[in-house]
């Protein structure tokens, strides 16, 4: 319980720190926010009006608390470019990004976990070497290039087996469910393969350490075969660690798929953020950056607490785990 309280306190402090950093990053721009947002050729009156409208002529501290106060009541501001509320923008984008990363993560787990286990169980040095090479190459392919290769293989119009739409998302979005799902297949596989390779490495490392431990020796002396011992005892012991890795991977995928969203022309969260930064839609950028950071910190918090719940060995340890000599 003390751990949870300390972790929560830290979460609040980190959230505050990030909000200050994001706020400051937008205020130390050369020139001021209003003139950048209004554009190069905007008349002085437009800049002044914008400054007034956004409250930019007030002191910085007051601006910061205005922004924070609005955030707390759920008002994330309005995008200057489109006039839509940032909440609506993020909602629309999340409806593409989240299905993409959830399917991508499922594919990654289907690839990474069994291959990781197999790499630990394999006896013959050649097979082990093959798994090793596979993991290294899978982790070395740039996401952009991996996506391109998949488009060249399966994309409609260019691919060798052109059966899947390679770019764009139906205009109606999920109003056109079949089209929407089809357009997510290639990007989801791109993410899945790349993340799967890293999951495979984590599984192999976590399980490999345990496979040489006393736990496994114990299980084997009780009559289990090595395979049984690794899969039943080892996997159970590696579970807390793997849950943490998968949780943090899930969080990092929200922005990690940015390049892939861009390549496949999907209007998701990451792609939208890059567009907004490019358009200097700074009020939207400020709230989006903060929300994303808050999301990552929240997942980090959940993962840490979950790890503790899943691993009884940590129960007696203090907040700072001691090294086991």
């Amino acid at each position, binding site marked *: 319980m003390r751990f949870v309280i300390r972790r929560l306190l830290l979460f609040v402090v980190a959230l505050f720190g990030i909000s200050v950093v994001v706020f400051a990053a937008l205020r130390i721009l050369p020139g001021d926010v209003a003139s950048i947002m209004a554009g190069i050729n905007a008349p002085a009156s437009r800049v002044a009006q914008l400054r007034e409208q956004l409250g930019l002529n007030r002191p910085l501290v007051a601006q910061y608390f205005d922004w924070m106060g609005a955030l707390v009541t759920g008002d994330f501001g309005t995008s200057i470019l489109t006039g839509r509320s940032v909440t609506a923008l993020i909602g629309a984008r999340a409806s593409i990004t989240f299905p993409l990363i959830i399917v991508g993560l499922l594919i990654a787990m289907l690839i990474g976990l069994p291959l990781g286990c197999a790499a630990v169980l394999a006896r013959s040095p050649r097979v082990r070497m093959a798994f090793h090479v596979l993991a290294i190459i899978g982790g*070395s392919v*740039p996401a952009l290039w991996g996506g391109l290769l998949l488009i060249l293989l399966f994309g409609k119009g260019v691919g060798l087996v052109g059966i899947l739409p390679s770019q764009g998302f139906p205009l109606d979005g999920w109003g056109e469910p079949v089209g929407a799902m089809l357009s997510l297949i290639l990007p989801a596989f791109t993410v899945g393969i790349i993340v799967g390779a890293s999951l495979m490495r984590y599984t192999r490392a976590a399980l490999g350490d345990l496979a040489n431990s006393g736990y496994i020796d114990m299980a084997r002396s009780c009559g289990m075969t090595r395979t049984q011992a690794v899969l039943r005892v080892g996997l159970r012991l590696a579970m807390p660690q793997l849950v943490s890795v998968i949780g943090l991977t899930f*969080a990092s995928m929200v922005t990690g798929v940015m390049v892939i969203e861009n390549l496949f022309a999907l209007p998701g969260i990451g792609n939208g953020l890059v567009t907004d930064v490019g358009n200097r839609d700074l009020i939207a950028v400020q709230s989006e950056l903060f929300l994303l950071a808050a999301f990552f910190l929240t997942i980090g918090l959940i993962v840490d607490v979950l790890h503790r719940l899943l691993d009884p060995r940590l129960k007696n340890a203090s907040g*700072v785990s001691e090294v086991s000599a």
Partner: protein
Amino acid sequence: MSNNTQITVSHNDGGRLRYGFAGRAAIVLKTMWRRGEGKFTLIVLALWLVVALISLIWTPQSLWATDGYHVWAKPSASHWLGTDGTGADVFSWLMAGSRTNLLIVVLTVAFSALWGLLLVSAMVARASALASASVVVIDALISIPTVLLALILAVPLGASITVIVIACGFGYGLNLARVARPSALLAARSSYVESALANGASGWRILVSHIIPNIVPVLAVQLSLSAGTAVLAESGLTYLGIGVPSGMPSWGHSLATSVKLINVFPLTVLWPGLVVTVVVVALNIFGDVLRDAIDPVTNPALRQTAASAEKEDER
């Protein structure tokens, strides 16, 4: 058990081997070269260095010579890998890109090493408040992804190498500190550090001559993984327009320009991706091979020099 005694021996004279830095580096390289994957990674990395240096004075075609009559040309004698949409030579741009990527990787690794070591020394500090605070802060910050940090930095800085180096180096440093902590802590609580303290050694001296030598294997692996990830991050961030500024050659730039017309000229995209993949594979393997070669525990050749140095001392 005999292995254990060897470990203590090698640690004890780790700081004053007779063979200087160059001598030990030669032994490490020789040991790496003996393995198949070691040969591969050393050749690739040496090639990278050489090409980057050559590109400073010579490329087959000038970077800015655009051949308007041969846009998207196929590979030929004058354009070894063909040309891109402006008629610029793909091979020359890849060559020139290698120096930008080398610079980015070196800066990122240096930054993350310094930042990571700073955090490690905070985490093993004898002031327990500092130590536990830094562990907790690192745990909280580590969930912020590189791309997000790069975007925050890109708002005031625009597309620049600085954005890549700081965003990547910051996160990799956190990671390094987290991974290196157990072995650093083990060294910091060891009896030889205790006796060094009793002899009045300063905290700085203990860090340099006792803690760092003990985390060198971890550093080797983590830093070369970081180098590989930095190459990948460069291509992603540059593609998104927040990495290397346009007009400066880099592999990410080559990859991004070839993407635009993938529907019409699919094959141009193969080369930059292949270069990046091969280099990142080499960097990932480099760490593993280097760890085995640089650690006196796993590399007997380094222990022999220690032993022979001792014999010379006796004479």
